[in-house]
């Protein structure tokens, strides 16, 4: 597994926030979902996932709650806070601007 590039690293926060915006879930489910939606392109080691989640929690963007899952085990469920939602909007905006700017530059080069 290669190390994600810097840009991707910076946007990991946004991806995690986006995933958690859909529904509260535990760390394992987040890693499954990330792999699933990005079609294995964005690979994130489990070893980076948990520190990233803890960081978001310490920032106050997500909050954790211990719940009993469907199969009867206690698991830590993360969900977005109001602050996290605002942060997600901000980062999505940034990302939109950044990616359109980049694609413009890339197209320019091809022309």
């Amino acid at each position, binding site marked *: 597994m290669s190390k994600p590039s810097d840009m991707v690293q910076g946007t990991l926060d946004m991806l995690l926030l986006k995933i958690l915006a859909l529904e509260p879930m*535990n*760390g*394992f489910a987040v*890693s499954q979902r990330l792999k699933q939606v990005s079609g294995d392109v964005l690979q994130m*080691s*489990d*070893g*980076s996932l*948990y*520190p990233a989640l*803890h*960081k978001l*929690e*310490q*920032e*106050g963007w997500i*909050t954790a709650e*211990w719940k009993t899952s469907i199969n009867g*085990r*206690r*698991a*830590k469920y993360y969900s977005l*806070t109001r*602050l996290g939602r605002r942060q997600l909007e901000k980062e999505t905006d940034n990302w939109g601007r950044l990616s359109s700017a980049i694609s413009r530059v890339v197209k320019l080069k091809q022309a």
Partner: protein
Amino acid sequence: MRPEHWWYTIPLRLRSLFRRRQADRELDDELRDHVEQKTAEYVAKGMTPQEARRQALLELRGIEQTKEKCRDTRRVNWLQDLLQDLRYALRMLRKSPAFTTIAVVTLALGIGANTAIFSLVDCLVVRPLPVDHPHQLAYLISSWNGNGSKGISYPDYQEIRKQTVSVFSDLSVIRMFRTDGLSVDGKSRPISVAYATGNFFGQMGIKPALGRFILPSEGGAAGADPVLVLSYSYWKSQFAGDPNIIGKKALANGQPVTIVGVAPAGFHGLISLVDVQGYMPLGMAVSLKDEPADFLVTRDNTSLVVMARLRAGVNLQEAQSALNVVAQRLSEQYHGRITLSARRLSPAGLIVDPRILTFVSFIFLLLATSVLVLACMNIANLFLVRAARRQREMAMRAALGATRSRLIRQLLTESLLLATLGSVAGMILGLNASSAFSSIPLHTTLPIILDFHFDWRVFAYALAAAVLTGVLVGIVPALRTAHGDVSEILHEGERALSAGGYRMRNMLVAAQVGGSLMLLIVAGLFARSLEKVQRADLGFDANHVLNLSVDPHEAGYDESQAREFYRALLDRTRALPGVQSASLAAAVPMGYNDSNAALEIDGYRPPKGQERPVAGCNSVSSQYFETMRIPLLRGRDFSESDGQNSQRVAIVNQAFADRYWHGEDPIGQHFRNFGDLGHPIEVVGVVKDSYEDDIFTKDQPFFFASLTQNFDFRATLQVRTAAAPEAMERELTGLVRSLEPAMPVFDVQTMTTALDTLQGFLIFRFTAALAASLGILGLLLAVVGVYGVISYAANQRTHEIGIRLALGAQPAQVLKMIFRQGFVIVGVGVLGGVLAAAAVAKLIGNLLFGVPPLDPLTYIAASLLLAGIAMLACYIPARRAMRVDPMVALRYE
């Protein structure tokens, strides 16, 4: 960060801090859960359970590492590290109790000396007076024809007040205190009273603790408004804080007054050190003997202190230019050159020259700081020694991944903790020392208040000293330790300590020897100065003289009864066995006399533009010069024939005769007291100059008037005894009581004790005692420092010494080697100390009496003492090293 943000994050931080265990457990659970789910997933894909679990763990890249990374996001690590460091530091200090005790005691001495001296300085020159906006207050000084600075007369005050409304919000007058008697309900006690205009208290912006102050309408007319305001401390100490005191009738200085109020706690008047205990309207000062009846009208009395409060936004320069205009107008009226100047009221209050106090404060703070620096050096040395021992430990920590900054932080935590412990102990010590200052007996009727207490300034000072100490002491060893080469240290052990370490410590010891020698020499100079002052030829002989003061006025006597009482007292006293002579005097030398008279002298015309001659004066009875052993050079003593109604006579001192009659025969010359021009005074005798008012001036013109002709109710009986004067105390007090049982008797003391006043020896005694305690502290610290380092160095070289001895070196040679090292260090230190002491001594030259700043005896004695003790401190470890058994030494480690 927005507050909204804190809503989410603060509970998390608190949780990480205080519920760390739970947070860690949850982290455990979370990761274990993940691994289990992952394993289950892989098993479902067909892996064996073992393989699946291994894969899951691999993807987590080490479960402990991930945990650590998660913990790192918690952002309270620094605090946890600190707590950990503190715990660790406490454990280290507990584990080496000897080290801890020595360090804490040393620091406590250093910081204690500093806080004690700072609390003194705080009281004298730092703490602002307890009035409203003290920085707006100034006092006015006048100068006539460019000479002298004086107060201001009442008519001029009124004029200035009218013409400076634009710059001063108010002017008031305060006439400095004098000690009177106050009798309430038949019991009398001394009281120092200041006389003020009615607007004084309003100008100070203070509120009475009880009753009222003098009203603005009071105080302007002579003898009117007989009211008295007491100071808070006087009310508490003399009347036990009785609220019924308000409205009480009393006799102050023999006049009926009504007590109307009590000033607020902490307000002692406007002079630091002096406790003004009562306030009366200015007009009431007319009744005082030394104040002429017309003092509110005459322009000659320029003794009043005018207090001014600057208007908000007006600075001193602007006020001064307004004063210059007024001074110009006054000059035209008087046909003279008058200048008026406003001086800011310093925290020391109306002290003639606050710079002296500031200077003395600075000197003693400097000395105290030197003691603290010495203490710091001692501890830094201990730390260096310990750091050497702990290099292995530090290297181990570094090898295990501790960063350099983390190691430095840990060592600094230890030294700061030690400094904190030391400063807490030091503050307790300082508190006790400053209350010891407060209880120094002052042998005086002048109420002195030494209001030392720990306020926030003292606390801040001690805290700053502690932090500085902690950092200074810790930083060098910490840097050195954290710097060490890990592998080298792990291999070599303690002996890897570089030569630089020795050099550093040797330098520290030399500095210690130098610093404490400086303190010792300064202490020695002060002690010698005290000795000189006590042995000085004062012009009189204070030995074998007993003083006893009485005040017949307090006992309800009128003047003729008082005269009769004094006559009887003198006759009976002189008849006592063991009494060689006895006399009465209005004031005793170095007492709080301060009587000056402006004179007109026959045959003497003051040079143009100069003021009238002024001389100090005292009123004494016959035999005064015999009792005080002041040699009568010419003429005669006072006698029975100098009666109330006969020719006024005086005896002048040599300086008086020389100054005004230039070698002409002074006997039979006349002069007049300016307040009483109708009665020419004839000179009947000349005495040798003596110190009268204070220890700082001797050869000033002074005259003695006859007590019979210049009567004073309050007088001091002085008795020259054959035996020890103390032995006569009871007998004399008994004699007074037998003449009048109700007679108040005070200040029964020997003349030598009576010299311990502010004008007399007190300042010398005080500075000598202070300097001596600092010197002894410095010596103690130097001994501990030198002994510690030399013995440690000898210990360190045990191995080397063993080899030397095994190779055939003689013990004497070893002794010499170790001794030589100590000798060089001490020598360098002594040299530096002498130079430093010479620099400080130059500064304090003015505070010394009869001792040159470079007094060779002091320098040599102090150097020999210190060098001797330091060499002794070298000798003990050297001898121990000499006795080393080579086998033991070689097996060492």
